[in-house]
């Protein structure tokens, strides 16, 4: 197990290294780094100072070394528009995004797995067919337009929920969160639902396919021959088997949710890092963009790593094969 984690850790470091190279070349080699990293409103003197400070007059490999060391020490430059260090700015916004992503994932899981399970157990029923038709819509409808329609119906017409903002927050371990206040929930519900739709559809399909596949296996029939109750068969024998792919996808999709939060946050003016990215792109605040990209790459690599480890923990066949268990 440890050897496995170590090996994956090394792979992840490799990916990070490659991505840092890509970002570096994107910023330094393809574009003009002065344009990207120096405030366009700066005067000639500032620019000269920045060039010297960033080492842009040095050879490329030294520049990369400088970029890498300062990135590793958490220095990704300062925002042009606010002057705050880019990383700090992103970290301020990160809790809001993570909260939105987590709640949306929870919604997708809480509805997706039971609905998929039902559709998988009774594939011929009318309800199951309805569920599946709904999941096709969930895949096809563009997230941003669904977000607009949610605002139109629930905020404008019905007036039940506020269309934008984050609402009242409370500090939890020093981090502001919305989900502990009623007002926070009312602000959270629409964007989280919007963000959840795609994964809800995905989980329904995945759970249904997995359930159908598992239900015809001999071990399910054997479990029934043992006289187990349906609740035990479905709750343990079926669920534990389909959980392996589901956990994998849920884990991997968490990264996509953070990425798609860019869209949802823009619509619902949710003050997360996705909205920060769009604002930064619109303001050409490049250090923030670079910092966001590096950070999201890091997050993706970490998520992939965690999912792989979780996956191997869930599936005894992999877990034990790796430790050289009795085979």
């Amino acid at each position, binding site marked *: 197990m440890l050897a496995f984690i170590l090996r994956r850790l090394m792979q992840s470091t490799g*990916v990070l290294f*490659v*991505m840092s190279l890509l970002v570096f070349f*994107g910023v330094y080699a*393809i*574009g003009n780094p002065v344009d990207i990293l120096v405030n366009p409103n700066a005067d000639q003197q500032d620019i000269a100072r920045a060039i010297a400070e960033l080492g842009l007059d040095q050879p490329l490999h030294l520049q990369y070394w400088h970029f890498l060391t300062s990135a590793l020490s958490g220095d990704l430059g300062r925002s042009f528009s606010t002057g705050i260090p880019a990383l700090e700015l992103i970290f301020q916004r990160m809790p809001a995004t993570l909260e939105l992503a987590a709640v949306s994932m929870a919604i997708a899981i809480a509805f997706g797995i039971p609905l998929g399970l039902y559709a998988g157990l009774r594939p011929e029923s009318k309800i199951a067919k309805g569920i599946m038709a709904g999941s*096709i*819509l969930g*895949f*096809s*409808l*563009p*997230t*941003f*337009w669904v977000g*607009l*329609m949610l*605002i*139109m119906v629930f*905020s*404008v*017409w019905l007036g039940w929920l506020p*269309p934008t903002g984050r609402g009242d927050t409370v500090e939890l371990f020093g981090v502001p969160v919305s989900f502990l206040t009623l007002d926070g929930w009312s602000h959270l519900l629409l964007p989280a639902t919007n963000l959840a739709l795609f994964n809800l559809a995905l989980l329904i399909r995945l759970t249904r*396919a997995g359930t159908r596949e598992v239900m015809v296996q001999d071990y399910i029939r054997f479990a029934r021959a043992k006289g187990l109750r349906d609740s035990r068969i479905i709750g343990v024998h079926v669920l534990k088997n389909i959980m392996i792919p589901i956990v994998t996808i849920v884990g991997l999709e968490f*990264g*996509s949710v953070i*990425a*798609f939060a*860019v*869209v949802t946050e*823009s*619509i619902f003016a949710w003050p997360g890092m996705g909205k920060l*990215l*769009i604002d930064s*792109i*619109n303001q050409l605040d490049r250090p923030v*963009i670079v910092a966001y*990209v590096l950070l*999201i*790459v890091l997050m*993706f690599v970490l998520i*992939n790593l965690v999912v792989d480890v979780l996956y191997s923990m869930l599936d005894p066949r992999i877990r034990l094969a790796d430790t050289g268990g009795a085979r």
Partner: protein
Amino acid sequence: MSAAVPSLQSPLRRFLGDFAASRVALGAALLLAAILLAALFAPLLSPQDPYDLAQLDIMDSKLEPGAKGTAGNTFVLGSDEQGRDLWSAILYGLRISLGVGVLATVVAMAFGTLVGLGSAWIGGRFDALMMRIVDLQLSFPAILVALVLLAVLGQGVDKVVLALVIVQWAYYARTVRGSALVERNREYIEAARCLALSPTRIVLRHLLPNCLPPLIVIATVQVAHAIALEATLSFLGLGMPITSPSLGLLIANGYTQLLSGKYWISFFPGVALVLTIVAINLVGDHLRDVLNPRLSR
């Protein structure tokens, strides 16, 4: 085919027969055909040229669907802030959305197919490197890659197409490589090699046609993805420039009016977008079932 039941139908006839067997797929195909025709003949179907400022009257601004304008004309789907007829704007927007989506998909398919075929044929290090790149890219969501690319590249139709190509090519490369690797070991390729045909000829004339069915299926679905992605990017203000108002831009324009209850400026372009995407997806889904029964769920 079994000898006992000689098939008198041509493959195409059989294909069309299979396809038409599903009423949903047939409906979707008809809808898609209607959408394509509407986009193609937009200038003929539109009551006004929505981007000829001389035809717009600011007095007609934000009219409700069905309202009559100052010139006595009816705005079937209402009008936007500048008094533009939404029905016309949607037809013109469809052209742009479909055009960008199809163009990006075709280019991505050509490039990805080339890489995939090369990867399968050359093998070795080239293959390993290409598949690493493909894996790396596919591990990031398309929306993110596209956003970052556009942030670096800046705005413009060409840049949107480029970004869509970059986020798509990897799918084709991987798919084509997969089926090419399978086909490569088939006897007919062996036979072609024995005839000492040139590698280019073998790859293009023998290998490629046999990799086509999965490619067509993916391309269909990818057109829908490309259209949705372009709309999303345009909505965020990072996609098409205002001079090329795609459906996404139309929806974005209506966003500010939405909170004051003027839903139609965002709603109807969205409906057009959704119908297009759903129709393409349904056709693609069914194409997959027909072209490859093994893949059907």
